[in-house]
């Protein structure tokens, strides 16, 4: 086990390589450019292909073509670029192809800004493009977790033949922490008999397609996708609970915001307020059961996001009215401070009659 010090964005690239990914198609955008820059150096060294596309639209369609041939492939962008990729993502989901799409979020809407944000939660967790589909959405909160989730992401993508999104923010992408990449993996153990690589003696040709003009056939396809989504929901949720066992106030937050929330909870504990953090690692499927388990002692839940309030809807849906849910958010690239979250915890602890 040896640790190296690396930037989050670069770790995404190296972790992909360690997971057997040799192909990357992208288009530059701040704040994730270190990732394509890193891969443009590394991939040619190991016989892979880095290709800068003419647009995000082209890049995601190159990913679509590459994924159709059964290889591990990745693209990355930031919010406005991810909007452009939605057409291709919908096709990839509809054609049931595996790949990883990285979104290092920045503030929006429109051109927005380039500072950290979590305002693409709805887009990421509700499909994002047209049609009934879901991405598996993984939200790392540390550089080490980026490495772990990129590797796991490729496996999930191939296991379910479904696109996986790694959702981070600019701060996570720019941050340096030690990371251990662990053992190298590949997608070799997964069935690739569906891949379009030329018939090579096969009797029937393979077709990658999401077109079903007959409504009866499209319904069958949609129902099959539904079955897959239900299976993912039942098997693949991941979350971390921090000091929630006796917590009266549970802060629900993901990614970097959850790290800041932990500091706020540390402050609250020092003042005798029983607080904890619930951090979903999969944003879709949302860890409903885990949230309910983490809030058995809770009197209230505070959701903190770098948005106007998006994940808070999933928190409410998961708790289904069982607990009061409040929201604190910073937007536009502003990052909530641990102090401010602590004040919110204190206020809620007083409001909901917390025992000091």
């Amino acid at each position: 086990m040896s640790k190296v010090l690396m930037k989050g964005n670069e770790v995404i690239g190296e972790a992909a390589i360690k997971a057997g990914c040799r192909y990357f198609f992208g288009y530059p955008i701040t704040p994730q450019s270190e990732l394509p820059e890193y891969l443009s150096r590394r991939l040619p060294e190991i016989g892979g292909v880095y290709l800068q596309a003419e647009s995000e639209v082209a890049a995601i369609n190159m990913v679509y073509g590459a994924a159709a041939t059964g290889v591990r492939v990745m693209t990355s962008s930031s919010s406005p670029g991810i909007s452009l990729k939605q057409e291709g993502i919908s096709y990839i989901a509809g054609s049931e192809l595996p790949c990883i799409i990285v979104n290092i979020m920045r503030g929006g809407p429109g051109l927005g800004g380039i500072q950290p944000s979590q305002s693409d939660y709805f887009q990421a967790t509700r499909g994002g493009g047209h049609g009934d589909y879901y991405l598996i959405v993984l939200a790392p909160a540390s550089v080490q977790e980026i490495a772990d989730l990129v590797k796991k992401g490729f496996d999930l993508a191939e296991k379910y033949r479904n696109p996986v999104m790694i959702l981070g923010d600019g701060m996570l992408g720019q941050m340096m922490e030690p990371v251990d990449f662990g053992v190298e993996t590949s997608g070799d153990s997964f069935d690739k008999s569906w891949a379009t690589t030329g018939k090579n003696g096969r009797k029937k040709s393979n077709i990658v397609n999401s077109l079903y003009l007959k409504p009866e056939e499209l319904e069958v396809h949609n129902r099959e996708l539904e079955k897959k989504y239900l299976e993912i929901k039942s098997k693949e949720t991941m979350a971390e609970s921090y000091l929630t066992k006796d917590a009266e106030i549970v802060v629900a937050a993901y990614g970097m915001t959850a790290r800041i929330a932990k500091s706020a909870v540390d402050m609250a504990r020092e003042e005798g307020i029983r607080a904890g953090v619930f951090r979903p690692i999969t944003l879709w499927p949302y860890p409903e059961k885990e949230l309910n388990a983490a809030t058995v002692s809770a009197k209230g839940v505070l959701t903190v996001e770098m948005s106007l309030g998006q994940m808070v809807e999933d928190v409410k849906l998961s708790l289904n009215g069982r607990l009061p849910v409040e929201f604190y958010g910073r937007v536009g690239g502003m990052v909530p401070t641990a102090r401010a979250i602590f004040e919110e915890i204190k206020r809620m602890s007083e409001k909901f009659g917390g025992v000091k």
Partner: protein
Amino acid sequence: MLKQIMIAGFGGQGIMSMGQLMVYSGMIEGKEVAWIPSYGPEMRGGTANCSVSISDDPISSPHVTEPDILIAMNNPSLDKFEMSVKNGGVIFINSSLIDRKIKRKDVKVYYISANDKATELGDVRVANMVMLGALLKIDKLVKIDSIMESLKKVLSKSKHHLLPLNAQALEIGAREIGNN
């Protein structure tokens, strides 16, 4: 014990590399570390800053808003971050470029003429190492040996002739503490 440091100055003062050296050294020593830079137009506009967290335990938030230690390499950095330092914290001032005293009374302060000392050594670019030497004299966050070991790894072989200069700068910085 968690220590969080804010390092600020303008581009070219080696702000980012100073922070990276600290976390690299911390990692070598088996500590938990994190480094976050400012980025984008903020960086290109002249001021650059990065935050460093070094801890014996897993780090909750690496996003530093109330640093234990501030290293201010120029006037705008001091103006921007002076008030954010924790009560009882420490501020290191590059007095070669900062012409004022600090306003706060509840923190410790050290005035280090980093640029002048570096220039005396023959290369103003090691002003950051002078500051780092001063900091490590006051707070043994990481060992000087670890800094030198990290430098060896971070610098390409062709730059290894600069190692003695950097070691000297660290020493002079530590000595400057005595003049405060």
